[in-house]
C-alpha cells in the first residue's frame, strides 16, 4: 500500500480544500500575515515545486504527472455556500489542473525583492496561481461532498495509481453540519494502492498546538477531536519525512494538526504532500 510510483499512467492527485471563511482574514501566529495569505503563499510555493518536480528535461514542459484541484469554500452575502475551484483564467474551466497546464497558466508572475546587506535589493520572480480570499461561513460538508465526487471519478479513472491526497485547511468549525460522515465517505474511497488520504489542519486558535498526534486528543475541544477523527493515518514514508523534520512521531500518527501557527502550516503541508520520492 502507498507505494505505487508516479508516472504518466499512474498520475498523482492532490486536492486542497481551502477554507475561505471570513475569519481566515485574521492574523496567524508567528508571522505578520493573515491566515488566508499564509495558505495562498504556501500553496503557490507547493504548486511551483510540483511543476518543477515534473519538469524532467530543460526545454521540455513539465510532464502531466500530477493533477491538482484547489477547492475554496466559503459563502456569499446571503450565506449560500460558494464552493469552487480557486484557480482562475485558463485553469478555471476544469476542477483538475495538470502540472503541464499549471506551468503554462499562472495567474501572474510576481516580482519580489530581497534585501541584501551591502548591496542593492535583489529582485526575483515567482509564479502565482492562488490569491488569498476570505469572506462568509465555513460550508465544510459541501466542500467534502465536492471533493468526494472529484476523487471518486479519479479513482475510477486511475485504479492502479497512488490514491489521491485530500488536504483540508480550515480555521473554524463547519457551518453546514457535521463533516464527520463526509470524511468517512471520503476516506472509504480507494485505488488498488490504498485508501484516499484525508488530512486536516486547523489553523489558528487559542488552545495547544497539535501536529501528527497518534492518540486521540481527548482533552482538547470537540472540534479538535473531530479534526483528528476525520484524518487518515500517515503512510510510513510520510512518518519518515516528519521525523526527518524533527517531529518525534510514531506509527499511527495522523495527518492532523490543530491550532497551527505559521511554522506548523508549513510543516503540515510539507509532510502531507511529500510524494516526491515516488517520482524521480
Amino acid at each position, binding site marked *: 500500500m502507498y507505494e*505505487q*510510483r508516479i*508516472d*504518466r*499512467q499512474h498520475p498523482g492527485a492532490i486536492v486542497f480544500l481551502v477554507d475561505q*471563511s*471570513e*475569519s481566515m*482574514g*485574521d492574523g496567524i501566529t508567528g508571522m505578520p500575515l493573515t491566515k488566508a495569505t499564509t495558505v495562498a503563499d504556501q500553496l503557490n510555493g507547493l504548486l511551483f*515545486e510540483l511543476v*518543477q*518536480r515534473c*519538469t*524532467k*528535461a*530543460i526545454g521540455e514542459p513539465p510532464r*502531466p504527472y500530477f493533477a491538482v484541484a484547489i477547492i*475554496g469554500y466559503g459563502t456569499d*452575502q446571503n*450565506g449560500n455556500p*460558494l*464552493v*469552487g475551484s*480557486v484557480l*482562475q483564467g485558463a485553469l478555471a474551466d*476544469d*476542477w*483538475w489542473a495538470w502540472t503541464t497546464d499549471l506551468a503554462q497558466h499562472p495567474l501572474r*508572475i510576481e516580482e519580489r525583492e*530581497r534585501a541584501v546587506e551591502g*548591496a542593492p535589493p535583489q*529582485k*526575483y520572480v*515567482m*509564479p502565482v496561481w492562488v490569491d488569498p*480570499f476570505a469572506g*462568509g*461561513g*465555513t460550508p465544510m*460538508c*459541501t466542500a467534502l*461532498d465536492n471533493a*468526494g*465526487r*472529484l*476523487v*471518486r471519478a479519479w479513482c*475510477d*479513472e486511475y485504479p492502479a495509481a497512488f490514491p489521491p491526497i485530500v488536504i483540508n485547511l480550515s480555521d*473554524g468549525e463547519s*457551518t*453546514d453540519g*457535521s463533516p464527520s460522515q*463526509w470524511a468517512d465517505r471520503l476516506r472509504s474511497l480507494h485505488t488498488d494502492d490504498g485508501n484516499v488520504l484525508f488530512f486536516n489542519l486547523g489553523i489558528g486558535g487559542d488552545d495547544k498546538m497539535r501536529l501528527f498526534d497518534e492518540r486521540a486528543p481527548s482533552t482538547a475541544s470537540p472540534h479538535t477531536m473531530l479534526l483528528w477523527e476525520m484524518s487518515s493515518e500517515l503512510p510510513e*514514508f510520510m512518518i519518515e519525512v516528519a521525523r526527518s*523534520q524533527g517531529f518525534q512521531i510514531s506509527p499511527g500518527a495522523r495527518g492532523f494538526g490543530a491550532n497551527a501557527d505559521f511554522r506548523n502550516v508549513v510543516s503540515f503541508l510539507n509532510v502531507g504532500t*511529500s510524494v516526491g*520520492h515516488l517520482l*524521480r
Partner: protein
Amino acid sequence: MTQYATNWPTSTDYTSAVQMPDTAFVAPSLASTRPVTSALGVPTAATGQNAVVFLLEDPHRRYHALRCFTSAPSDGRTRYLALSAHVGELTQPTTLAGATWIDEGIVLQGRSWPVVMMPWIAGRRLDIVVEELVVDDPRRLGALADALYRSVGQLQATGIAHGDLQHGNILVGDDLSITLVDLDGVWVSSASYPPPDELGHPNYQHPHRSEQCWGPLVDSFSALLIDVSLRALAADPSLADQLGGENLVLRQTDLVDLSAPVWPRLQASPDEWVRAGAERLRGLLGATAEATLLPLDQMFRRSEQSSVIDQMRSAAPVTGPVPGALDNRGLQEANWWDYAETSAANSPTVSATPPRYPGSAAVGHGASSLATGGDRGPAGSPSKLRSGPIGSALGGVLAGLAGCLLFGLVEPSIHHAARAGVFIALVAGLIGAAVLGWDGWTSGRASRAATGALTGFALAAIVALIALPVADLILQGPIENARVAAAIERGTSVDAVTEVDVPVVAVAVAWAVVAAVVGLALGARQSARAALFGVVAGAFAGFVGGLLHATTAASIFEERLRVEPFNPSTLAATAVVSALIGLAVATARRSGALAVLTVMEGRMAGSEVLLKDRNTIGSDTSARLVLQGPGVLGEHAAINIVDGRGQLIAFGSVHLSGRAIPGDPSAAHPLQSGDVVRVGGSYIRFTQRAAS
C-alpha cells in the same frame, strides 16, 4: 531507505537564488553567468530526486548546467574529486559528462551550498528519444541499444561505474552518441569511499539491491534491462503502451512480480534475443542482487547477438498515452462514496452540480475582503479575550489593583475603624463590575458593558458590606487570642497590644466568606444553579486568595484588620485574589447557564452570550446578541428557553443548520445543542447543557 530532503534548500529556493546572481553566485567560475529563463521569465530547471539543474549562459555565450542539491549528496566532494582525478588519468575518451564540484557555489538562506557545474550537453533524455523512435523509426532503437552497450562496456573497461543507469541520466545525441550525467553515485577503481545512500532508480534496479551491492559491475543489471527493453520495443512497438515517462517497458512492480502481464509479452517477442534476455532478467530477479554483479559481456552472453529485427511486424503507429480523459468528464454524480452504486436514499441535500466561483473570485463578496480583516467586533478585540472567564480574570486583576489605588487615595479621610470595610467593598464591587461589564461587552455593545459594570459594582459592594460583619466575627476570636498571647509575652495589659499578626487561616476564611457572597449575588443574576456554583467557587477562590494575602502581606491588627494599599505585597495579593474570584465567578456563571450562543463566523466571531429565558438577536442595541453587518434586522430572531429546551423564532429569514427558514414570528423551531443559526453573514452556534 530513501534519503529525504531535510534542511537543504528546495528547488524553488534555488530558483529564487539563481535570479540574484550578483549576490548568490560566489564561485569565480559562476560569476557573470546568468540563468536562462522560460518565456514567462522564470529560470528553466529540471528536477531529479536529489538535485535541481539550471541552464546558465556565460558572457561568451557558452552554456553550462548547474546542479544544485536538494538533499545531502553522499560524500559528494570526495566522489566528484576522485572522479575528476580518475578521468584525468584516462587516455581514451569517456562517456561521462565532465563535472566540476564547487564547494562554495551558491549562497542562499545565509550560507553557501555546494554545486556541480558541467558544460551543457546537447543530447536529449533516453525516454524522450525512445518515445519518438518507437513511433517514427523503431528500427533505430536497435542501433541505440548497440550504442548504449558500447558505452557501458567502455565505462567498465576504464574502471568506472555510474551507479544509477536509467533513462533520465542517459543523454542521446542526434547521432545516437551517449553521454551519462548525474554522477552522484559514481564508483571509480582508483579511490575508495562508501557506497552512496542512493540506490538508483527503482524501475532499473534489482528490487533487493542494498548498499553493499556496489562496485565496478553495478551497472550490468540496469544495462541488460535497458537493452532488452529497447530491443523489445524495436521488435514490437505495441509495447509502447508500457512507457509511462519514468520507465522503459518494465516497472519496479514488474520486477517484483514475475507474473505481471508484461512478461508474457516479452517472452512472446519476435526477437529471439528479447526472449532470451527476458528469461535472463527473470532468473536474476529470482536470485540475490549480488548475483547481478557480472561483467557486461557475461551478463549479456551475446554469442548469438541477433539482428532479428527483420522479423518485426510493421505495426500501426503508437502514440504515447497522454492522460486527459478526465479533462472533459463531469463529476461523479451523487452517492460517490458508494462503490455498489445503490440507492440514492442517503444522498445529502447538497446540490448535485457544485457551484463555481464567478471568473474573479474576490468580486461579489463586497465588504468582506481581506482588507477588513482587522475590523472585527468592539475595538477590534482579539477573539480569545472574548470568552467570559479569561476576560473576567483579567478584569479581576485590574479590579484588585484599582481597588488598592482608590483605597490608598481615600484612606486618610476614612475613620480607621471603617477602613477594612471600605477596602473590601471597593475591591468586591470592582470585581463585580469586571464580571458583569465583561459579559455586557462580549454581547456586542458598550452601553450594556457600562450598565453591567455599574450593576455589578453596586451588587457586589453591597453584599460584601453585608458579609463584612460576619468576616469580622470570624476574625475577632483569633485576634483576641493573639492579643492575649502577645500581652502575656510582653508582660503588658491586653489593651496595650494594638498591633499583632493575625492567624493566616482566619484571614483566608474571612476572604472566603466575602467572595462566596459576591459569587452568590453575581450568580443569582444568571440562575439558581449559577448562584450555587458561585457560592462554592467564590468561597474556594476567596480562601486560596486569602491564604496568599495573609502569608505574603503580614496582616496586622489595629483595632480592625489594617490594610496597607501601597505595600507591593498587598497589591499583588489583592490582584491575585481578585483575579481568582473573577475567574471563579465567571466560570460559575457560564457553567450555570443552561445554554450559550457562540458566534463562529462574522464580525463578532468569538463572542459568547449566556442565554436567559428570552434572548433576541439583531442589529438593535437592545438585542441580547448584537450583530452587525448587512442583512441583519433590528430584531432578527429570538432564541428562547422553554421548559429547558431551546427554541428559535425567526422574524427575518435565517438558516438553521443549513436549512432555510423564512421569517415567521408565529413558528417556533426546536433547537438541538450544536445547531448553527445563520443570521446575515454571521454564524451562531447554540450549545445547550443537559438539563440538571
